[in-house]
């Protein structure tokens, strides 16, 4: 009978109720009759039945929240802490500045290497508004406590489980409390807390509470010690942070890895996303049971007033019409509507044509920000981004955004061409069998697990990429060096489980994703065709140049070696140039300077320079360039020059070299950083020499 503990609280309660209500005739259950020794009376059973606290439930079912294995648990803890930090900052209108620090905690006195370690301390610091002292314990040590559940407004967190669950997991695996430092402003004092959760009661236990000195003027710092496993690669903390930085280019993210490295994800977009509004539920998204509850809870005294004030998009006039259609007097008291009358009312509402919910509750990332995020983190030749107009599923408004980064960076393109080895029969150029990578987001949070269960992934598969000049085998991802970005912003993202790993497969959502992907694909197709056209012209000219040599040699041999070779060659070359259209080809090859046509919100990187949203790209470069230098200055008092040199001498790795390189580039990019450039220039300025160098050597994400 202990199985009841594993049920969810609500079902457990109802089962308890039904079993209590029904007298169980012992003889009617033959199995029990066979084993009379195990008979239990209803009274005895009743004595065992008791309430289960949410915390107890989730302690046993931690996999539901994403703590299935140590590696995932580590990621989930980081994710919950960062999500909270970003939500808080954005809500307070502060450009987020978040530091994530992973430290190895020794269990037996010696510090194991990062890959062997089993215990970590996660510290996440933000520059957000801080938390008032009284709320700190409950926010961090009580499940299902928060500000985000009872409202319809887009945010990363939804239920109020996340951070307290992370704390509970830490407590469970290491026995250590969660430590919090929070300060609401430079004038306020910083409070230090150590809290644990009383799993039986789902209430916080405060271990320590004092005022301390803190160097930060404002913000919150959470530290949790957990059992975990640090492993790079797919679905790692590193990948998650990198993807977070792509979808949140307005965030400055600093990441101190357990290996002692510091990674900087600079801010490349300097505007906060518009703050989403809170909305009332849309009538289409309400189930009947919920509707009954709303009838009871409303503050209005009349049904028409209730409809008009408790829902969005129901003006008083429409409310009256609905009442009329349902044959309910508009002045009836909502609390008195019950049973069939309420149901007719509910049906009439569903039948009435009601405007789609307002969309100012959403805060999409925006095409420019997606572009800058992709451009910053992913190497490629072509970038594009599409934001769909808002749509509605089950009464919840949502926006789908898609982005795409394609190709190898120009500096990588030339590499494999070097070894021109003669090929034997049957030998081919090694084909790139690389498949596209899909990065998925829900309300700006990267989703790393359960890719194949996710609506976004299914939409990517069902898009016919072949139409856009990309290879795709049946039922597989498209091939080629490509990253596909899909973001769903909604007041309520329908996840398939509490651990928020995959978006459920609603038709409306899938349709929107497909439309966004198609638009991305269309632009990619345009780009590829344009590139192909240039390449084929180039090949045309090249072919003739290659073959002329062969033909001349063969003719010479046929003529017994008595041929004026150079003359024949020159003659043939002259014909070749005239046949391949001379200067026109130069144009097709992009040597003249026409911008990308029909490619809005895209960036094209060629060896010659950047096209499209040039100013955006330049700004990203300037930011990426400036960032490491800045942190070096903050890090210690040494002047930059000497420090980079010192680092180089020690050959301390990539970062030192980059820092130096970048500093030079930042200076080169100065002309692009003009303060008030037009938003989208019709014709991008002629890419100059500095462009070329930049695109050739700028450091980008590690991908």
């Amino acid at each position, binding site marked *: 009978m202990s199985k009841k503990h594993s049920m969810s609280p609500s079902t457990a309660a109802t089962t308890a109720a039904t079993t209590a209500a029904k007298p169980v005739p012992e003889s009617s259950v033959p199995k029990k009759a066979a084993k009379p020794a195990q008979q239990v009376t209803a009274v005895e059973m009743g004595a065992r039945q008791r309430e289960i606290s949410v915390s107890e439930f989730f302690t046993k079912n931690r996999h539901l929240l994403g703590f299935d294995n140590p590696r995932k648990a580590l990621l989930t803890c980081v994710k919950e802490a960062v999500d909270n930090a970003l939500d808080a900052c954005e809500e307070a209108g502060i450009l987020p500045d978040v530091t994530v620090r992973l430290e190895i905690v020794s269990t037996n006195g010696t510090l194991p290497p990062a890959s062997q370690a089993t215990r970590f301390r996660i510290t996440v610091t933000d520059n957000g508004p801080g938390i008032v002292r009284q709320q700190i314990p409950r926010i961090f040590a009580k499940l299902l406590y928060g500000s985000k559940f009872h409202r319809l407004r887009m945010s990363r967190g939804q239920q109020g489980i996340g951070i307290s669950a992370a704390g509970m997991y830490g407590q469970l695996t290491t026995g250590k409390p969660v430590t919090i430092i929070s300060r609401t402003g430079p004038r306020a004092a910083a409070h230090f807390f150590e809290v644990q959760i009383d799993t039986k009661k789902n209430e916080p236990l405060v271990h320590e509470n004092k005022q301390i000195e803190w160097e930060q003027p404002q913000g919150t710092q959470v530290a949790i010690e957990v059992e975990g496993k640090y492993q790079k690669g797919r679905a790692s903390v590193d990948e998650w942070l990198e993807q977070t930085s792509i979808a949140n280019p307005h965030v400055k993210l600093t990441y101190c890895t357990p290996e002692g490295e510091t990674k900087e994800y600079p801010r490349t977009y300097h505007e906060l996303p518009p703050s989403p509004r809170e909305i009332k539920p849309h009538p289409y998204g309400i189930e009947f049971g919920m509707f009954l509850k709303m009838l009871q809870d409303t503050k209005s005294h009349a049904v028409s007033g209730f409809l008009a004030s408790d829902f969005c998009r129901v003006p008083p006039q429409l409310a009256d019409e609905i009442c009329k259609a349902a044959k309910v007097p508009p002045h009836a008291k909502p609390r008195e509507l019950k049973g069939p009358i309420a149901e007719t009312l509910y049906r009439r509402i569903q039948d009435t044509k009601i405007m789609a919910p307002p969309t100012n509750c959403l805060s999409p990332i925006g095409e420019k920000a997606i572009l800058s995020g992709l451009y910053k983190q992913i190497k490629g030749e072509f970038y594009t981004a599409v934001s769909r107009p808002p749509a509605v599923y089950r009464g919840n408004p949502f926006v789908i955004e898609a982005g795409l980064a394609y190709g190898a960076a120009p500096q990588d393109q030339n590499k494999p061409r070097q070894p*021109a*080895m*003669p*090929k034997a*029969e*049957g030998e081919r150029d090694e084909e790139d069998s690389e498949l596209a990578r899909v990065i998925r987001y829900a309300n700006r949070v990267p989703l790393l697990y359960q890719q194949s269960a996710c609506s976004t992934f299914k939409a990517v598969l069902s898009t016919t990429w072949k139409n856009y000049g990309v290879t795709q085998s049946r039922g597989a991802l498209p091939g080629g060096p490509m990253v596909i970005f899909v973001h769903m912003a909604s007041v309520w993202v329908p996840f398939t489980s509490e651990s928020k790993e995959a978006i459920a497969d609603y038709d409306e959502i899938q349709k929107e994703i497909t439309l966004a992907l198609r638009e991305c694909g269309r632009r990619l197709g345009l780009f590829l065709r344009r590139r192909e056209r240039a390449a*084929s012209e180039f*090949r*045309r000219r090249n*072919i*003739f140049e*290659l*073959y002329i*040599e*062969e*033909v001349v040699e*063969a*003719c010479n*041999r*046929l*003529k*017994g070696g008595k*041929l004026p070779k150079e003359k*024949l060659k020159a*003659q*043939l070359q*002259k*014909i*070749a140039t*005239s*046949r391949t259209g001379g200067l026109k080809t130069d144009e097709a090859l992009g040597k003249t300077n026409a911008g990308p046509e029909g490619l809005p919100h895209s960036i094209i990187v060629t060896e010659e320079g950047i096209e499209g949203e040039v100013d955006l790209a330049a700004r990203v470069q300037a930011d990426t360039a400036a960032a490491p230098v800045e942190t070096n200055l903050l890090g210690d008092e040494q002047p930059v020059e000497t420090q980079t040199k010192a680092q180089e001498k020690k050959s301390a790795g990539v970062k030192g070299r980059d820092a130096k390189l970048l500093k030079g580039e930042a200076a080169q990019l100065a002309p692009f950083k003009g303060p008030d450039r037009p938003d989208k220039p019709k014709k991008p300025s002629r890419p100059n020499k500095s462009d070329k160098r930049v695109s050739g050597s700028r450091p980008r994400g590690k991908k």
Partner: protein
Amino acid sequence: MAAKQRKTTTVEKKLIGVADVVITAAERSKDPTIEIPIRALSNVSFNARKGLIEMGSKKQARSFFNVGMAKKFMQTVLVADALSELQRAELTTSLREIYYRTKHTIQDSHENTFDTQDESDPVIEDLEVSLSALREELHVRAENSGSIVGPVVFGDDGDRVDCAKLGKGGYSVPSIVEPEYLEIRRCTADFVLLVEKGTQWNRLSEDKFWRRYNCVLLTGNGQPPRGVRRLARRLHEEYRLPVYVLVDNDPWGYYIYSVIKQGSINLAFESQRMAIPKAKFIGLSSADPERYELPRNVGIKLNDKDIARAKELMNYEWFKKPAWQAEIKRMLTSGLKYELDALANKDFQYLTKKYLPRKLKEKDWLD
């Protein structure tokens, strides 16, 4: 060069002509173009009077400054060069050797002039047709994949080869059998029997069928190579020997017969000296299984390809004779094909002892 004193042959002159095309065109700033007669069904016609397939006059221009043809053009010039090298050195070679000779990586690239032999073979055929030079004249030989046995004496490189004294293995027919290479000194046979399959030729040779019926046994192991076809034609022409063709009863067997009789579509330009319009189809006919009481279970079901091919054959001009239409239709209605080997079902020597004697006695053949 040592070859300088040697007189250039006509073929060599024709090959050099390819280089001249390029040079003249270059001087006039024109696109160098070689005209190549089309080798396809669309460009052949059946000359009913002569009983030959003849090549039409349709030509295809292969020009250098055309992206689609540039490589082919370059390859053609390269092959012409290799062929003229053969002429100068007075050597013969195989198709495969030409492929290797002309294959190299183009300078400053990783592109090969030829990737497979499939690219070089058609180019050689193109040159054959456009220069109207025979493959033998180009000094390109095929595999020796034919055998002959019977009362015939050849002179080959000064050696006397008596095909009646070569046991059951016979003489391997060289790929070039023109009089200057192979001399027919004596032939006392009454007819030529051309067998599709080596296995059945072996059966006949082992049973000394040729001795009893005084004939020449020839085989080409499948589609007979040029050497075998040309030799049969010479025996037919020079010694007035009738030629009988013995093939499997399937569309491919019919086509082998038709190639021997009227020439092939691909090499229609050579029909003149290869085809034997008077050749007769002796078997296996689709009427034979009934007549010779072959059980149905030794037949093989026609597959889709067979059926498609048979229908194609029925549309060829040279299969329009009523007897042939009936023959092919009969096969299609029965839905079965029979191999020559199936005759062994009755007796190992059924072919030698019963089948062929009866056929010859009854003069049961198709024209």
